[in-house]
């Protein structure tokens, strides 16, 4: 005759589902460290890159790939993480019972705060934001990732009113790779040259060098004059720009005349417009 397994009183007690709720009333909230660590996990921080892209053919060099996050995968990963403390059946039972207090705050509050915390923002005063499954995002493998570290990624939501989704992650999980992860389904993504590295340049190189010129911009809006107002870019030979001479020529042509013309105004005139490319997402009709 087989004996039924001997269970501890607590185990027997919790096996009755109606008692599980009683446990909540006496157990304190899990420590913040647990929630924050799990939040990192939900955002796939620390997940080796090979787990994300198991085959290089999925993300060949110089490509951009969009994706959905499989929530089941994330859930199973959390199961695995929580299983480290489950040494006995009772441990497992308690972890399962406390599922709601262990896991829910992670996706209700903590996951959306990870990036803001990294950006040094005060997260405690902000309105809590819950994860809005399914999450979507993109991966880039390109020299662009290293050359334009500050690439700007703007987005809109798929759903009206198409407000931008919260960026959950935007970083480089591996060299030459950028990962973007958004709290919801993307409607569109726009990639822009980083403004801090927009470069100076001169137009009109085709009849190099006598008529190098640069079209004037309004100092307040940064927009070009309409009609265009080109100013000659002076040089001192050997492709070297006569900076002072050019600056003075620009200052003289600006209307209204600026009070001062410093390197800041000069930069507005010489900077090249940022490139940007927008992607519209297409979803199948469900």
């Amino acid at each position, binding site marked *: 005759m087989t004996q039924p397994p001997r269970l501890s009183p*607590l185990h027997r*007690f919790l096996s009755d589902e109606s008692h599980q709720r009683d*446990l909540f009333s*006496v*157990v304190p909230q*899990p*420590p913040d*460290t647990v929630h924050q*660590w799990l939040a990192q*996990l939900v955002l796939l921080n*620390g*997940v080796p890159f090979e*787990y*994300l*892209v*198991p*085959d290089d053919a999925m993300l060949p060099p*110089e*490509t*951009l*790939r*969009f*994706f*959905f*996050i499989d*929530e*089941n*995968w*994330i859930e*199973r*990963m959390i199961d*695995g993480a929580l*299983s*480290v403390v*489950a040494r006995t059946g009772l441990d497992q039972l*308690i972890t399962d019972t406390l599922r709601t207090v262990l896991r829910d705050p992670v996706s209700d509050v903590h996951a959306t705060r990870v990036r803001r915390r990294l950006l040094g923002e005060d997260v405690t005063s902000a309105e809590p934001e819950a994860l809005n*499954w399914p999450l979507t995002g993109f991966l880039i493998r*390109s*020299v662009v990732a290293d*050359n334009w*570290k*500050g*690439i700007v*990624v*703007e987005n809109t939501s798929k759903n009206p009113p198409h407000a931008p989704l919260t960026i959950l992650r*935007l970083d480089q999980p591996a060299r030459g790779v950028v990962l973007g992860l958004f709290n919801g389904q993307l409607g569109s993504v726009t*990639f822009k040259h980083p403004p801090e*590295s927009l470069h*100076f*340049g001169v137009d009109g190189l085709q009849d190099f060098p006598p008529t190098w010129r640069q079209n004037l911009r309004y100092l307040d809006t940064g927009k070009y004059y309409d009609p265009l107002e080109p100013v000659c870019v002076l040089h001192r*030979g050997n*492709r070297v*720009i006569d*900076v002072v001479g050019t600056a003075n020529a620009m200052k003289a042509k600006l209307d209204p005349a600026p009070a001062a013309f*410093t*390197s800041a*105004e*000069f930069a507005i005139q*010489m900077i090249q417009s940022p490139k940007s490319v927008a*992607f519209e997402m297409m979803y199948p009709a469900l």
Partner: protein
Amino acid sequence: MSDTQQSADDHGGVPVGDIRFYQAIIPPLPDGNYTLRARQTLDGLPGAEPSPSIPSVTLPFAVRGPRFTLNPADINSYFPPPSPPTPFEGQLPHVVVARKTLPWERLLGPDLDQGIPWLGLLVVDEDDPGGIPKVHSGTVADLLRDGGKLPPGTIGPALRTGDLDDGESADDPCSYTELPADLFASIVPRLADLPFLAHARGVDTGNKPIEGILAEGIYSVVVGNRVPHGSAVNGAFLVSLEGFGELLAGQADEEAAREAADGATTIRLAVLHSWNFQMGGEDPFDVLMSADHSGLLAIDPPAVTEVKTGANCTQQAITVPAPDPSSPAFVEETVRYARQSGYAALTHDFRDGGQTFSWYRGPVIPCLLGLVLNEDQSNPVFRTADSLLRYDPASGLFDTGYAAAFELGWLLALQSEGFVISLRSYLHQAKTKGLRLVNRQQLTAGPFPLNLPADGAASIRNGVVLDAVVRWLAIPGADALQAALGSTASTGEVTS
């Protein structure tokens, strides 16, 4: 866009999409040695004539910053990129520095205004006399006038050992390069040019990768003054112009600079950063962003027409879609479906040493997949990785994705001591509280484990049980306890 001369402690806060230009961000004190002298006098103290003298205090200090070398981490980015060649003909090179005050931290010369940057970005190409100069590693002594290391005909900055600040030494390592004096005179910015060739930019950081971010969002930018050669290799050199004031100042015509060089044929400069680049080819940004380089994350991503992404996988598809096994193209179909839905075929080692290949799919997939719950809408519970291995009998292959997820979560948790300790102590706490709860319930709810009188709670309040326990401790044995309970229970029946 707007522009102001920003004070060093002002903060950004630039609206999304805007750039704010600053002509200069001048630190309150330029780098150098300073002495703080404090003197205190006490006058009119009754009965103390003459006033007591208070010793003055002298405190030397130095403001230090980069001078002959620059920490590579301070360079946020530079343009044009070293490779591949980029088609930015007519564009001026620049260096973006993640230190907003850097170009204005030092004085170019003792009598010069702090608004003149001390850094210059020189562009030299292969076709220039002498070609692109080499960058040598040496020490600060190689640059100093009294360092004894300058060969005849070569001059460096007008600096001597005595000009070094506290904490700097002639033995400090640095990099330097040498340019023919004529070339230097023709390409170096003139003193009046320099203020236009450095500025600072404030940008919004909300939509940028973490690595590219300076929390405050203000960068300083040093721009070159020479359009790169369109077909030859160019070298860009971020150099210190400190101590070259006399060579630059008279440069209204280049002759004056040559005179200032005093017959020297070679100029030696400290190089803080340098790289080579070439013009031509395609802009990688355009290449990357073109339609045929984008798609969904899968091998052979599903054909997407017109626009760049779509999701034509079935919702709720949890296993590899298995085409009809009787179909002659069964194998091809299986592979195609699997690859299009984000699976990769990987080698799978079994515990018993056997090997096969299995499907793996990670957390990032090319199709929409909702959370799969039990039929009663409860969360499925998995306690081992093996319970998550899926077997597809039609193809005879395993799907290992979720098993790998479980295993990885477990491994990552094990790596994180802080997490395990917190979680374990929390679990322990929960167990203790739970046990206390059970004990309380048992005592008040009866009849378990002792056969207490039906209104056990009342008995406890009346001290009956306590009595029983005391007696039991004195006369060991369950019978004695029963006896005790039987004899004292006045309000209920004792059952056996």
